[in-house]
């Protein structure tokens, strides 16, 4: 692939890299795994880039490839010690924006999301990104009605964790 194409790709990626980091944040719980998944997603995006026709937004296309990589292709590296809890030292909760109680609530929510299964994680992630049901349905390959039903269940589950 030529250098111009690579430059064009990296420019697009640079403008959209937060999307990929957010996906990594939901599917991993420490910096090493985050970086491993980020790298794998970049490789998959680059390999698939020739098929990107520009008829959809780059971010929508990148979402699909990134989610597929996180859900189906990513292989956790053995050098990373797997724990069930999130390393919150990577997160910033500005004291100007959030009080101690809100910070605690957010940590509980992120921890609860991390413990969801891979498909429910994808649903919540797409909800947080304000994707509509149609787009979620087209990304996951399940019907809009079922997305709606399942989404409500996952949201109720998350709320219950905070208000048992």
């Amino acid at each position, binding site marked *: 692939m030529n250098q111009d194409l690579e430059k064009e790709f990296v420019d697009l990626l640079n403008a959209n*890299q937060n999307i990929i980091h957010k996906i990594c944040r939901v599917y991993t719980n420490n910096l090493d795994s985050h970086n491993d998944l980020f790298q794998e997603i970049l490789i998959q995006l680059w390999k698939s880039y020739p098929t990107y026709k520009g008829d959809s937004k780059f971010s929508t296309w990148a979402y699909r490839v990134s989610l597929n990589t996180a*859900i189906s292709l990513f292989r956790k590296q053995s050098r990373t010690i797997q724990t069930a809890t999130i390393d919150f030292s990577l997160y910033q909760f500005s004291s100007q924006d959030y009080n101690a109680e*809100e910070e605690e609530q957010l940590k509980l929510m992120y921890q609860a999301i991390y413990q969801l299964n891979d498909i429910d994680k994808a649903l919540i992630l797409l909800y947080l990104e304000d994707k509509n049901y149609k787009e979620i349905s087209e990304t996951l390959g399940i019907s809009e009605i079922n997305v709606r039903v399942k989404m409500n269940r996952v949201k109720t589950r998350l709320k219950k964790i905070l208000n048992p």
Partner: protein
Amino acid sequence: MDELELLKNHWKKQTDFPHKSKSEMHLLIRKSSSNVLKWIIIINILEFAFFFLLPLLMKVDDSNDGYTDTQLQIINISEYISYAIPVIFIVLYIRLMRRIQVTDTVSTLLSNILQARKLLNIYIYTNIIIFSLAIIFGAYIGIQQDEAFAMSSSFGPFYRILIITFIVIMVLVFLLFAWLFYKLLYGFLMRRLKRNYEHLKQIE
């Protein structure tokens, strides 16, 4: 504020990521991938190669001495089959693999990977059946040709039963080892894919 709104609010404001510079991204995309699919393909190639080479390794006696016409016919036909089967499966496998696209929906991608794996499973079981039959057939001919055995048959049916039991146990041990190997190897690689696919199917 509603908890989910609080979360959404924080989610959108997040910037505390390990950002990569453009030059780092140029380097990252050149790195080698270590994804599950790549490992599955490597193992699949080894499986094809193993079962393709196995008949060549097992072919010890090339002379036609001592075989009846029917036995020679069976040997010839089974040789053709042993070469035709991998070719048919490889063609089907390549067709399935070409359908695997990371740009598909999550459901389609998972389904296509699992279908390719299913095809390989059928290939493995077909081979196990063929090789089990080959072992039984080979043993049968061996017994017939073995003069010592013919002589020993005068010792009575006990000796014959003992040898047949031994052959059956050997076939069962072969099948057990093959089964354990695949359960371990693929259990490790496929567990997450299967689980995610089942979760999607439960939603539907």
